[in-house]
């Protein structure tokens, strides 16, 4: 029983990282942009939050937890939004290819984050490991009314933020005028344009907001998942691609992404809780999340139902002049 509880907890912590990534990417993809820069944006968001917290914590003698929290959050949102802006400018205004731009953003983000992360580890001296304990503690504080409930007692605030964000996003996409307009842009931008929707503006806003949400995944990873440290081990990149996979798994519905992300977490950590596995079969078990994603991809393409399809104009450029 204790094993199952700790698996659930590990799964929720893991799932929250990719849930943020998936919510952000769903918003982006609903506007018709297939942003493959998710890992890069997560990297940028994570390093920006860490750097902000580090600069603040090392400049004052007694850091205020609330201020730590806000500074890290602010830095992450701004930095990842800028990354989204760069992607939008290249793909929407300069009409560069979306896939190539996204991959470049991933290379760039991982480079810049690991460069500065490594530099900060060196600057921190001592054991060669940066640590922002106050900020990390602030992010790992659980909500007061959940204290003492077994699994929930050690989950940080952002876990709940992610769930709420997913629900709000579903409401926004399906129940508001702006959400309807956004979906119209993703399905058929030419029609949306003719109906008077400002296609370019909406795409910019959706991509930048989506990137900001994706960046929160990186923040959560750095400050909660690995407890306010930095490691150049490519951990974020792997999770970033899983977030892209989760978008498909959830069939572009943020609410499905909630349980999907926790399921991915269970699949990812399962090897750790199955007794009697030797190291080599553990490695095979770690394939599970990817195999399941492939299976979902194949099954949903076989069923061809209109509900489960990606936005019709996903990944394609829209130029008004070329109609």
């Amino acid at each position, binding site marked *: 029983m204790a094993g199952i509880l700790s698996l659930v907890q590990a799964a929720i912590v893991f799932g929250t990282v990719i849930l943020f990534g998936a919510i952000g990417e769903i918003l982006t993809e609903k506007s018709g942009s297939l942003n493959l820069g998710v890992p890069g944006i997560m990297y940028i968001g994570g390093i920006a939050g860490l750097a902000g917290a580090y600069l603040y914590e090392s400049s004052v003698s007694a850091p205020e937890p609330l201020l730590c929290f806000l500074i890290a959050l602010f830095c992450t949102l701004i930095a990842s939004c800028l990354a989204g802006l760069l992607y939008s400018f290249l793909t929407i205004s300069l009409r560069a290819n979306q896939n190539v731009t996204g991959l470049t953003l991933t290379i760039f983000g991982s480079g810049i984050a690991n460069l500065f992360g490594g530099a900060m580890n060196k600057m921190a001296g001592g054991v060669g490991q940066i640590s922002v304990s106050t900020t990390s503690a602030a992010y790992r504080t659980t909500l007061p009314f959940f204290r003492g409930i077994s699994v929930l007692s050690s989950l940080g605030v952002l876990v709940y933020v992610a769930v709420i964000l997913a629900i709000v996003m579903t409401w926004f996409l399906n129940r508001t005028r702006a959400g309807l307009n956004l979906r119209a842009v993703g399905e058929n931008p030419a029609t949306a344009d003719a109906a008077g929707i400002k296609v370019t503006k909406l795409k910019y806003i959706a991509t930048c907001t989506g990137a900001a949400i994706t960046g929160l995944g990186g923040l959560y990873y750095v400050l909660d998942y690995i407890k306010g440290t930095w490691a150049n081990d490519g951990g974020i990149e792997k999770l970033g691609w899983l977030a892209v996979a989760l978008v498909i798994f959830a069939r572009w519905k943020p609410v499905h992404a909630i349980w999907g992300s926790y399921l991915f977490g269970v699949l990812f950590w399962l090897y750790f809780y199955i007794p009697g596995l030797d*190291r080599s079969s553990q*490695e095979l078990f770690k394939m599970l999340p990817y195999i399941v994603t492939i299976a979902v991809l194949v099954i949903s*393409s*076989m069923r061809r139902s209109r509900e489960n399809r990606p936005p019709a104009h996903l990944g394609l450029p829209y130029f008004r002049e070329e109609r």
Partner: protein
Amino acid sequence: MNSKLKEPFVRITKREDTPLLKAWGIRLFSLLLALITCAGIIYLIVKLNPLKVYVAMWEGAFGTSKRSWITARDTMMLLCIGVGLAPAFKMRFWNIGAEGQILAGGLATAACMIYFGSSMPTWALLIVSFAASCIAGAVWGFVPAAFKARFDTNETLFTLMMNYVAIQLTSFFITKWENPIGSNTVGIINQSTKAGWLPSFLGQQYMLNVIIVMTLTIAVYIYLRWSKHGYEIAVVGESERTAKYIGINVKKVIIRTVALSGGLCGVAGFLAVSGASHTISTNTAGGRGFTAIIVAWLAKFNPLVMFFVSLLLAFLQKGAVEIASRYDLNDYASQMITGIILFFILGSEFFINYKLIFRGKKEVN
């Protein structure tokens, strides 16, 4: 017309035919801008004369003949993957699974070297591992292609997931082949006998890498440009409906082309294991599968351009490693610089394909 309606500040029109010279001028100009930007950023970080930094990069990549050969080897590796991806991309099949296909090829090569290392003569072992790597890569490409052809499954995400399946498979075999036990690495395979290592040729260790990749590049160029298969790929890429209408078996073309693409990436895995590192790890592909996508795309599948873009990226990588070790940074500086340069080149394509017309100016032809 409503006369109150203002003319927009800037309009965008498509250029029909940009002269080749002008197009390359724009590209070179953007490269120059990118290098200046990078120099500025490097200056901000290390506070060193950027020119000195570029000189250091040059020395890192071409300073000695050994370094030049390593740069050449890495250029060939990127070129091989880029050439492998070209057929799939020409068909508008977004194969972003090169990473996995390289690993599959590398795994096959490592397996041959480990299991047949003592029982086969070198030439036979090399041929067997070359073929095995090619087949392994082709299988890794075939699976997503078959589903794409049959069910129209999204290939971008399928191939992406196949990368991680390959990575886990590699981790699995590393635990099987571990040497020494407990190190969680395979170590240098056949260190004493050098069985299955690509031999040096004409006195140069990496000469064979260059020859193999150059041969493949020319072969693929001819295949795409002048063969019937190449024509079919181009038609399917332009319009599947047209292809069906003129009697091309689209499913067959998709599967055949992507298997070929995966096979060529598998050969890159062979080169990485047998021709360079003589070991296998989850980093054997090391992100080059993704970088090569950009190589293939930017070069528009022109092999000569692909060569120069690969050379540029290999130079940047080697150069950044050099400045990293000299100025106490880490190697990731190269990824950042690569990213910046690619952003500029991607952006420059706009100015080649479109022109801006500002308010009040008459359109000049």
